[in-house]
């Protein structure tokens, strides 16, 4: 075998290895995208609607996120289980009823304007069964906001001194929590991003890093189909 052929084979082998590594990286990135979880369809006296049940936790825990167990996160209820995903599928042109069990303590809104629920049916949200049209901005722990749909809902936190606060997910309602409910209309089909507007990334500069900048924790997509 000539030296030229040997060099050619060497370069070819090196390129194959580099290509395989790039392929593995891309495959890893693609498979890390949160799986979409469908909201539950229901039929009520007013017609068909959809129920989306979420919880927010101060720490997602090692069971759901071994790499970042101490990151704050949303979880979604699916088939009786809490699932770590922030991509939700809801039907187009329908009413979505949302229930959020909020287990985290307050951080405070960076922009107090978002203390008012907007884009919900009736312009209100209920907190522990009581309808409100604004919360104390300093009591906000998180928000559920879909800017393109004009939906902004502040979520108040549990008291700092709560004795039975849930340490990490999955959190059950036996722990200290707030129950927030609201409804909104979805409109036309599309993929809409949603996010938390509270800088709740504990341990990161100004609370804006980590779970605030990583898909799958405090932000995601609403797939309207």
């Amino acid at each position: 075998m000539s030296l030229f052929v040997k060099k050619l084979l060497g370069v070819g082998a090196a390129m194959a290895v580099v290509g395989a590594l790039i392929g593995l990286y891309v495959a890893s990135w693609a498979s890390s995208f949160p799986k979409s979880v469908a909201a539950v369809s229901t039929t009520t006296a007013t017609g068909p609607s959809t129920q989306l049940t979420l919880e927010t936790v101060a720490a997602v825990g090692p069971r759901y996120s071994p790499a970042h167990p101490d990151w704050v996160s949303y979880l979604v209820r699916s088939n009786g289980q809490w699932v770590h995903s922030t991509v939700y599928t809801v039907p187009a042109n329908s009413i979505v009823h949302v229930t959020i069990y909020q287990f985290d303590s307050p951080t405070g809104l960076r922009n107090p304007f978002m203390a008012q629920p907007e884009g919900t049916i009736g312009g209100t949200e209920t907190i522990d069964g009581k309808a409100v049209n604004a919360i104390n901005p300093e009591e906000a722990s998180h928000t559920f906001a879909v800017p393109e749909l004009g939906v902004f809902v502040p979520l108040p936190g549990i008291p700092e001194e709560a004795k039975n606060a849930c340490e990490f997910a999955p959190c059950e309602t036996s722990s200290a929590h707030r129950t927030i409910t609201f409804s909104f209309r979805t409109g036309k089909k599309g993929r809409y991003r949603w996010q938390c507007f509270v800088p709740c990334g504990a341990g990161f500069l100004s609370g804006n890093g980590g779970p605030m900048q990583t898909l799958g924790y405090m932000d995601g997509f609403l797939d309207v189909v």
Partner: protein
Amino acid sequence: MAEPNHARRFGAIWLVATLIATPLVVVLLGPILPPGKGSEQASGHVTDNTVLLAMATPVLLLVVIYLLYAVIVFRQPQGAALEGPAVRGDSRIQTSWIVITSVLVLSLAVYGTVRLEEDGAGSGGGPSPLVVPSGPKLPVQVLAPQWAFTYRYPTYGGVETPHLVLPVNQMVELHVTSLDVIHSFWAYQLGVKADANPNVDNVVFVKPTRLQTFEVRCAELCGIWHGAMFDHGHVVSAGEFATWIHQQQVAFAPATKVLPPYSKTYLPEPVRRGG
């Protein structure tokens, strides 16, 4: 056969091409240059871009015609491999080159400075702009948290809204600031672009001149949802604006109650951290 005077011939070709092309470029391309004529400032940008294009056309022709002339006239016959005579410098050409390019660049610098000083040219002038347009102005505050702009109207009870609506033919004084990281407020069709920095009141003036819907986007990479920091604003008649702002005051009355007093900047550092 005597060698022709290439410099004179090339100069004549370039001059004729310039005299033909420059007016054509100005007349045909000038009116369609970005960003359109959505405001006095945007119209100014169109004028500036037309001036730049008019000045760049002779330069472009100089380069292109020189290349073509060299390729055609100085093409070597097939089989020849002769080097041309070494050129050791020409003080006339060097002086002309330095003088002409300096005049061009300095003229543009002076022109740009004068234009900027007229009304800010749609760019942020910092908290104390050097030039403030005369006459009444509508102050509107642009707030940029991650990742959605909101707008506050201090002369209407300090109401804040997620929508940007401006009255036509009214000078608007935008106060752009950020609540967290650095952003940039860019209203393309209005010819406005201003940095949004935390704890900085960046003032920019704009006078919309026609009814329209314009794009608003963040022009500074600001995090995972930077690309989604996009919205539309509207320029409406004075009457429609009055109706709209009243609706906003009613709709966002609960939020207005909990807003801090209007300020040029805000650093609402949360008292607690999540987690």
